[in-house]
């Protein structure tokens, strides 16, 4: 019977473990190589984003993408069939605002084409993913007690987002005429927001900021302050959660991760 000393056992064990490690690091027949699976001693080549410049065309394409976000949201809202009863008149307003956004999209894409860019003709994919799709899902949830009201709440938030976006690009656009064109549309978005605010909180009491005494939270106001805000826009939607609260999304104007760069397409 062979007998191994403790030292010999440790030595053999070390050799075995090294073999297993080397086998794991080596190429294996029939296994496709992936840059995502790194091996010891092999540094994967980094795959960065395409080089992109943030210029007037990109900023205007981004504005156009928001217009399509609004168009698509109004279409979706109208398709939900929630504008009934007390909200029947809201369907007319929604159609009017959607048509205004179509006009804005055409105007902005006209500027894009004039600058030699490719017009952007669909909703901003990033904003769709993080804001609009989740919001519409919350609204359409069967447990939601007031989808009609939530549609107006979402529309109001999107109009504020559009108004803020145009205001925010004023300092970024290099051409003065483009700044004026942006704000010509931006002030129309602000008017949309004011009218929808009045639909949510009507009359004199809904014009200036006020606090809901029952909840301690600010009420919707047609005119939120002396200067156009550039702050996140909270929007609370959907059915109540188990703890009685509802989901709140914070909408923010597009930034580096949501601009409609030249390489972003609608296909």
């Amino acid at each position, binding site marked *: 019977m062979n007998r191994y000393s403790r030292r010999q056992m440790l030595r053999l064990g070390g050799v075995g473990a090294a073999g297993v490690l080397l086998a794991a690091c080596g190429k294996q027949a029939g296994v496709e190589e992936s840059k995502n699976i790194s091996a010891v001693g092999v540094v994967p080549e980094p795959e960065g984003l395409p080089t*992109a410049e*943030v*210029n007037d065309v990109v900023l205007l394409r981004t504005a156009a993408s928001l217009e399509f976000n609004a168009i698509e949201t109004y279409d979706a809202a109208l398709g939900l069939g929630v504008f009934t009863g007390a909200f029947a008149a809201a369907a007319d*307003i929604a159609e*009017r605002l959607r048509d*205004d956004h179509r006009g804005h999209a055409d105007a902005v894409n006209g500027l894009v084409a004039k600058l030699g860019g490719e017009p952007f003709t669909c909703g901003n994919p990033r904003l769709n993913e993080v804001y609009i799709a989740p919001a519409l899902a919350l609204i359409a949830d069967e447990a939601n007690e007031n989808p009609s009201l939530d549609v107006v709440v979402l529309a109001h938030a999107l109009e504020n987002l559009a*108004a803020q976006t145009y*205001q925010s690009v*004023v*300092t*970024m656009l*290099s051409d*003065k*005429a483009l*700044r*004026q064109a942006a*704000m*010509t549309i*931006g*002030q*129309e978005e*602000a*008017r*949309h*927001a*004011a*009218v929808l605010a*009045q639909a949510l909180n009507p009359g*004199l*009491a809904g*014009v*200036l900021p006020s606090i809901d005494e029952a909840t301690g939270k600010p009420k919707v106001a*047609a*005119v*939120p*302050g*002396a*200067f*156009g805000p*550039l702050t996140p826009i909270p929007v609370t939607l959907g059915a109540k959660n188990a703890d009685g609260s509802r989901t709140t999304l914070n909408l923010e104007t597009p*930034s*580096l991760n949501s601009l409609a760069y030249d390489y972003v397409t609608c296909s």
Partner: protein
Amino acid sequence: MTLPAASPTPPTAPDRALLAFANSAELAARDLYAEAAALPAFGAAEQTVLVGFHDHHLAAAQALAGLVGKAATNVREDAVYDAFRGKVTGSDKSAIYDALRELENTLVSTHLSLVGTLEGTEGSALVASILSIQARHAAALALLGGRALADAFTNAAAPLSPGATS
């Protein structure tokens, strides 16, 4: 990669003259709202809104003065005040709301014109933030005055120009 114009540019000398004019026009609006709020036709809730809009125009004038410093006169533009003063009177609340809406739309058009003229982005950013609110003023006044929805959205007012009014 960063967003362009991370550092706003200050007003040029011609910018300062235009922003000073905007300061004077805002003070004219402030005084017209003071006149309206003092009219007995309006109740307490209406006065609250009118005083709120008065305060917004005052804040706009102060911000513009802060940006241009000594270039600001901090005196109201009498031509603007005189053009609207006769309409902000009496007991016809709808007519007064219409006059104030026309005033707001005139200021929005004026500020839009400035945004297309100003070289420095500090000035254009401030004016953009002011006109965004004044567009909301106009929309709210259309609704308070019982006007059609389209009147809240449209603005046919011509812009003021410094040479034409002073």
